[in-house]
């Protein structure tokens, strides 16, 4: 009994409870809420990408929406215009996104602090413009249509098709869970520890024989790949994509999600994305006000709770346990 109680109250218990909820709730709610949950899952993945480069490596990138857009468009173009199948296109799209991350990372990460932030923002703006202006390739503002859902999976009792919402939701949830598990292993590994060390003190880390530039490029490339996966999933889910998805303000929104949830924590992307995406929905806020409200919430958090919700919970817990000892 005691052990059961411990499991329920432990961190693992909370994660398992959330997993169960994420699996059982969608069939019980309508399509609208399920589509909302799909978007929350996709943006949580994107938020993990910001978490790696900013939360864990200390380099604030405002350009993750651009990698999301590159992943989405690469997948869309490879399936619609090149005619590749779902999985080859998926794989190639994230490789392409990774290459972009690597190539942008090399010059951008030589810059520190505000200069790096500005370069990532500039990159994001440029990518947004390219998607609008390169009409022959991207279809311009009209966007790109006819992007496929995943191939149906043959099962003993019939075919599992992803044309309907619910299977698509589980498909995306599956990716979110895999990414989260790999992410948590990465940040606990020795390589992950060097990312964190860079965010703590870059010069000290370099003096300890770590090629900090190489590690920052590695982290940025992985973060681009994660953003690319989110983009591919979005592209396949939504069937059509248009340049707004890579709009630079999206890159800032996602940073706001992360800071509100708690940068540099595993729970941060979930908490922040959920709060900032679900809240406007619940409060019936006009979408055009979203960015404004995100900005205000972000400012309040930076002023009063810079470590975010999960950082706040952690320090509350610490205070509590200290009291019990003392």
């Amino acid at each position, binding site marked *: 009994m005691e052990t059961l109680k411990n499991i329920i109250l432990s961190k693992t218990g909370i994660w398992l409870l959330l997993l169960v909820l994420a699996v059982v709730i969608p069939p019980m709610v309508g399509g609208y809420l399920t589509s909302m949950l799909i978007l929350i899952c996709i943006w949580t993945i994107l938020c993990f990408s910001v978490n790696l480069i900013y939360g864990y490596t200390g380099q604030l990138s405002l350009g993750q929406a651009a990698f999301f857009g590159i992943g989405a468009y690469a997948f869309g173009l490879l399936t619609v215009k090149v005619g590749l199948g779902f999985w080859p296109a998926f794989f190639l799209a994230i490789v392409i996104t990774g290459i972009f991350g690597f190539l942008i990372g090399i010059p951008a990460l030589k810059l520190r602090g505000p200069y790096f932030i500005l370069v990532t923002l500039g990159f994001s703006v440029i990518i947004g413009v390219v998607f609008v202006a390169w009409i022959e390739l991207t279809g311009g503002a009209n966007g790109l249509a006819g992007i496929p859902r995943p191939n149906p999976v043959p099962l003993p009792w019939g075919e599992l098709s992803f044309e309907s919402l619910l299977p698509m939701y589980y498909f995306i949830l599956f990716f979110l869970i895999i990414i989260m598990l790999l992410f948590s292993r990465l940040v606990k590994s*020795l390589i992950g520890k*060097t990312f964190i060390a860079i965010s703590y*003190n870059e010069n000290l880390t370099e*003096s300890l024989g*770590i090629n900090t530039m190489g590690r920052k490029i590695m982290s940025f490339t992985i973060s681009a790949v994660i953003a690319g996966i989110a983009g591919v999933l979005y592209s396949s889910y939504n069937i059509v994509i248009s340049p707004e998805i890579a709009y630079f303000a999206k890159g800032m929104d996602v940073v706001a999600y992360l800071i509100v949830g708690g940068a540099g924590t595993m729970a941060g992307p979930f908490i922040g994305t959920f709060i900032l995406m679900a809240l406007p929905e619940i409060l019936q806020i006009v979408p055009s006000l979203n960015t404004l409200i995100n900005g205000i919430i972000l400012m309040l958090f930076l002023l009063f709770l810079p470590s975010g919700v999960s950082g706040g919970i952690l320090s509350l817990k610490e205070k509590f346990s200290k009291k019990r000892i003392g």
Partner: protein
Amino acid sequence: MALLEISGLTKRFGGLSAVDDLNFSVKQGELLSIIGPNGAGKTTLFNLMTGFYKPTSGKIIFKEKDITRSKPHQVTRSGISRTFQMTSIYSQTTVLENLVIGQALHAKSGLCSSIIGFPSANRERKKIQDKAEEILSFVGLEDKRDKSAAGLTEEAQKRLSIGLALSTEPELLLLDEPTGGVNMEEISGLIDLVDKIRQLNITICLIEHKMRMVMSISDRIIVLSYGKNIAEGTPDAVANNEEVIKAYLGERCVF
């Protein structure tokens, strides 16, 4: 051949020559102190030796290899490590975790094997954990193992920063004011630590202002003033050198 050879080393910041045509060498196994008034260019010299600054001119040869233009992490990997004048540790995490990060350069596991957790990566982790514990006890911080590094006293932070520098397994260790900001009573403990490091056959360059300490532990001393090498020799020879006394005018009593 000396362990380290410096020739014609110069670093200018605008019009100021912080290090000005320095020539000296460090012999295998010795403890060489570098002294000089504030702003003499001592820290700048360490920054040049470790690749944090690129020299305006001159050469640095370590173990017969030119490291003048090497990046700091390459210098560290070739066998030189350092502490910083502004004590540098990872204050956001625990003492042991600091020393685990210090071992990271020895890790060979690639990205995939460390994420997936191949047996080789797990074995490597275990080895690194053990080495971190070993250094923890070498610098005498066992009882602070799981404490936050931020909560350490200045003296313990110095020990930790030296432990970090030792994690890279240097042949030449550069210590920038290892007793700076530490209580008088605690200094002897740090001196003992420096002695222990010497017994490992690690060559040491030491920047210090505390003359009694410098005079007692150095094999040789170099005196810098305005970036120039104004005297060099045994502690006795340097203490009686006219130029040095001039440079330290008013500080003579400390000898």
